[in-house]
């Protein structure tokens, strides 16, 4: 009877994945083994579809029940879960939907998937203290060029080809009929959480470029250099005005720059 456990688990898994009936399975009751095993076959798909619906509620709404389920079933067949916690199931749905345009009614929905995944990630990203504007006020003028501001770990910058934010807003207002198809338009959207609430806003190219600098841990001098392309004569002023906005929005994490300056 050696290695029976391994055969059982591999047969059982193959049976679930391929909708087959493992040879080692017996019913033990009145219903047939196939009918009994189908409970596992169906529960597996139902649970994963539910997980995708929880991670992509606006996509679900935009596609409708049937189209969402077709997409979900195809994704589940192509990408069996390897995550321990079902919370992270669906992390490759954007790439998958991008390759299977027959499964999404509009190409903009691939962007919607990316926006929703970013929002879902911001929702339970790590908690960190915010950078206080008062702490920055104490930074000596000579220290500013070397200052490295740290993005809060909840912040996500998403590059989008379509203006899918309209779909998201349409889903928030209880829907009358079909939402209008999003317009094309490349831009970046910033996603973050402040306290318990998640936010997003679309960015001008200049702000997106500067935030990329923050994400790459560039110092303030480098951030200002990035601003030159957008405001040759007033690059520093532009960077400072964005910095004020980032502080107001709660995009910067607390402990980083000031302690780093103090250590020098």
């Amino acid at each position: 009877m050696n290695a029976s456990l391994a055969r059982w688990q591999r047969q059982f898994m193959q049976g679930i994945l391929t909708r087959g009936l493992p040879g080692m399975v017996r019913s033990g009751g009145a219903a047939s083994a196939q009918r009994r095993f189908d409970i596992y076959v169906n529960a597996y798909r139902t649970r994963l579809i539910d997980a995708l619906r929880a991670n992509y509620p606006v996509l679900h709404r935009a596609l409708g029940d049937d189209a969402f389920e077709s997409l979900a079933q195809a994704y589940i067949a192509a990408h069996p879960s390897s995550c321990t916690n079902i919370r992270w199931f669906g992390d490759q749905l954007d790439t998958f939907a991008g390759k299977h345009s027959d499964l999404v009614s509009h190409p903009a929905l691939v962007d919607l998937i990316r926006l929703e995944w970013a929002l879902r990630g911001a929702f339970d990203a790590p908690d960190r203290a915010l950078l206080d504007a008062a702490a920055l006020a104490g930074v000596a003028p000579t220290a500013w060029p070397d200052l490295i501001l740290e993005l809060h770990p909840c912040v996500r910058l998403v590059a989008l080809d379509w203006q899918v934010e309209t779909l998201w807003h349409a889903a928030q207002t209880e829907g009358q009929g079909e939402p209008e198809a999003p317009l094309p338009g490349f831009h970046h959207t910033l996603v973050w959480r402040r306290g318990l609430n998640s936010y997003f806003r679309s960015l001008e190219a200049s702000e997106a470029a500067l935030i990329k600098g923050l994400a790459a841990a560039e110092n303030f001098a480098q951030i200002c250099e990035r601003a030159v392309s957008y405001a040759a004569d007033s690059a520093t002023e532009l960077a400072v005005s964005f910095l004020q906005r980032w502080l107001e929005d709660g995009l910067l994490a607390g402990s980083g720059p000031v302690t780093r300056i103090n250590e020098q």
Partner: protein
Amino acid sequence: MIQGFGLGLRTDHYTDFIERKPRLDWLEIISENYMIPGGKPLHYLDRIRADYPMVMHGVSMSIGSLDPLNFDYLRQLKALADRVEPGWISDHLCWTGIDHTNLHDLLPLPYTEEALHHLTGRILRVQEFLGRRILLENVSTYVACNDDEMSEWQFIRELSARADCELLLDVNNVYVSARNHGFDAHEFIDAMPAGRVRQIHLAGHQDHGDCVIDTHDHPIRDEVFELYAYAIERLGPVASMIERDDRIPPLDELLAELDLVRKGAEQVLARRSHAAVSA
């Protein structure tokens, strides 16, 4: 020490617990729901924990799998336990996947000497890592394995002795499996080692005649209530709770149902101590 009657904490009821603080002995959380970096779930967890004792119940340990133990998962579980300080940590007597594919379901084990041996070593290692004994729960099953060498209750009894672990007895699951496999649920309960059963789950199921499915979307059925009374009579007072995972009703409905559970248990225990006095 956690005793008395509890409920599973569900997001639908967060504000009820925070604003109304209904009387309840303890809450059970699904560990994985809080094994995340931060944000709202952990915020509410901390606030509710301030008012209620908790136990942790996991669905991803996959203790019966042939894959190596997932120490990354166990480290996160331990970190959550440091935060929650639970009365105990439980998971299921099952496997959830193999070859690094996770089926996210509580899948049945063959009841064989080989499986006993495999599980014993893994439970001992998990308990050593966590620095505490764990509770393992009997799951609902719909099929059995041709290689079975013993009954489920013999398997559980033997495993808990060898691995020195504790048990979470899901009375609804006993009922569901008994109906599906045609065994006597009372025989199962009779075989449970009383000193090891620390917690009881109660839940609703769907009865399709030739097949019973564990759905947790209905109130507890009478047959399960009766079996619960039988279990309490045999095992004495065991911390008991209702699991509701789907079609979740207002909290007051669950509290009323839990009152019935409490009254039922108290009646049985009063009868039991009366019988003991007059004997």
